[in-house]
């Protein structure tokens, strides 16, 4: 009996750990692009905007099939990001206002639909609420398989279009002059980002999603000036926090998985900002102090010579 129990526990642990790790990699990779393009908070907006999509799918199909939910979230997310860009480009309304508007209105719509669903007899929306906070602990093998496929797809496309995406992020005008279809590349990259956000909703939930998009990339940036290394580090940090968070939540009773993953990731980020060589804040303080010492010594010597 004990023996069986152990295996069962192990299995779930592996599943959740793996899922979180894969999610960490995906968000680390795509978050790098988001952060470099100054679109950090798009993750926040898109994840909130996913809710109505999920609800509508439920209303249409009546089932709680995860993959269907993800499609609904994806459509919702793409509409949301398109609306944000449209409003920003076509009017004097600023990007952050567009983000805030789409985020709250879409989410509000999701809430309306949610409360409507709650009244349908036999409708158990526990599955839907999972998307608010994420319940990594309920990740199934199937979910992880999908994540793995998406992960491979993301890595494949990123390496295939490595230089094209680099052009897009760094100097899109120049890229256009070379003949690359910049608008299409933009759409593809945004689409990938939305897909990864939607995947991650199950792990960390809507509210914590922005952290997993932004923090790994920001942390990685402090350690390197090379884009490829930044992306690898970002993926590494993302997956480390995924695995660590999962482990902690399994061994500490009542510890919720999503939030602890975010706490671990934030810790990594703060440490990076403080201690990374060259850029790190503490590093700079130490270096400044050393410089001061050197200057003082120099002045002393100069005065001695007089």
């Amino acid at each position, binding site marked *: 009996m004990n023996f069986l129990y152990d295996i069962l526990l192990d299995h779930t642990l592996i599943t959740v750990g793996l899922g979180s790790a894969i999610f960490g990699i995906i968000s680390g990779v795509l978050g790098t692009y988001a*952060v470099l393009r*100054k679109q*950090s*908070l798009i*993750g*926040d907006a898109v994840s*909130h905007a996913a809710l109505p999509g999920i609800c509508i799918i439920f209303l249409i199909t009546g089932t709680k099939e995860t993959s269907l939910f993800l499609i609904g979230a994806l459509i919702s997310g793409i509409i949301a990001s398109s609306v944000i860009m449209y*409003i920003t480009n*076509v*009017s*004097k*309304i*600023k990007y*952050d*206002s567009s*983000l*805030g*508007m789409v*985020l*709250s*209105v*879409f*989410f*509000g*719509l*999701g*809430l*309306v*639909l*949610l*409360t*409507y669903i709650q*009244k349908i007899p036999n409708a158990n929306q526990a599955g839907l*609420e999972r998307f*608010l906070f994420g319940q990594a602990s309920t990740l199934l093998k199937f979910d992880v398989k999908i994540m793995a496929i998406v992960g491979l797809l993301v890595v494949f496309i990123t390496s295939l279009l490595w230089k094209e995406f680099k052009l897009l992020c760094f100097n899109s005008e120049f890229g256009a002059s070379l003949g690359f279809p910049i608008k299409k590349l933009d759409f593809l990259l945004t689409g990938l980002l939305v897909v990864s956000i939607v995947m991650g909703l199950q792990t960390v939930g809507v*509210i*914590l*999603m*922005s*952290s997993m*998009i*932004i*923090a790994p990339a*920001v942390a990685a*940036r*402090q350690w390197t000036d090379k884009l490829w290394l930044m992306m690898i580090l970002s993926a590494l940090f993302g997956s480390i926090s995924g695995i660590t968070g999962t482990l902690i939540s399994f061994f*500490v*009773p*009542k*510890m*919720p998985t*999503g*939030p*602890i993953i*975010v*706490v671990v990731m*934030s810790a990594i*980020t703060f440490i990076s*900002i403080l201690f990374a060589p060259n*850029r790190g804040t503490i590093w700079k303080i130490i270096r400044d102090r050393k410089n001061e010492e050197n200057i003082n010594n120099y002045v002393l010597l100069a005065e001695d010579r007089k």
Partner: protein
Amino acid sequence: MTTAQVEILVIGILTAASCALVGSFLILRKMAMMSDAIGHTILLGIVIAFFITQDLSSPLLIIGAAFTGVITVFLVEMLQKTNLVSEDSSIGIIFPFLFSIGIIMISMYAGSVHLDVDAVLLGELAFAPFDRFIVNGVDLGAKSLYVMGVVFLIDLIYIILFYKELKIVTFDASLAAVMGISPVIIHYSLMSLVSITAVGAFNAVGTILVVALIVVPPTTAYFLMEDLRSMILWSVIFGILSGILGIFMAFYLDVSIAGSISVMTGVIFAIVFIFSPKKGLLTIIQRRRNQKYEFAELSLLIHLFNHEDTDREEIELNPQNIIEHFKWNKKFLKAVLEQLIKDGYVEFEKDLLKINKKGMEYLKTNSIYNINDNKTCCN
């Protein structure tokens, strides 16, 4: 309508108005997403305050929550000041971090007491009337009514008192500093008010949707208005309208009030964005379409003027070649030509198109530069 429903309506109106007041300045300062951050981290403040007081209805909760809001702003700015992280990235790192700590604390330690996270986050105005404000055994009404009333007054007084300062600091921080107004004080006082408003409002719409009331009506007003005073006024109007319509929608459909109000802010925005007579999408599209023809006419006229009496006249003034050179299709050129002929600006001289006196007059008054009488082109 029942008393409870009336109370809900009034609370909703006060909440919307308060959020619109502070939201106006927030979006002008391009800090819309900060309201999202504050809305979430307030949870942590409430949790900590709860742990200290062990009392769900303690006023300390509100104070603690408002305080957390300010701390959030402070931490975000500290992170950004390292120059290693952009402002929006800072927001996206700090608030999930603080929020996660809040959730962890709730999950691990507050298990026995029901701190309904859903209610805090999503809010349910429907329950507001059940929380009464009782003094000496007298029921003075829903507590939220008084809370939001006070918040509204504070916001209103602040904006009236510091209107000038807010205006200058928002549009030109360095000028403000030169004039002896401290941008820092104005900034943090505004953010404190945003926090207090958000905390007060969480009862009505929950923290997440506070964002809707703080961002959407002011943005709608910003889109529509050119001056600050009108913008603030219309923010409040749009906000109150959203509140009323949202509440009625929720009553009628029996769905979440918070969600309905948010949806309404969006609906009003969409209507203004698309249909507004001067700036709305439809008007702009129509104007662009008209402009396309207007530009086309003008460019054709200029072309005729430029190439008149020159050695390339034969080629350039021939409509056939114009199609090719301008890369217009036949239909478009025909439409433009017909209009020009109808207006009497051009005439056909044998096979060539020539601009006439009336056309010259039209050009002179309508183009944005002076027509030189000497030709400007041609090799």
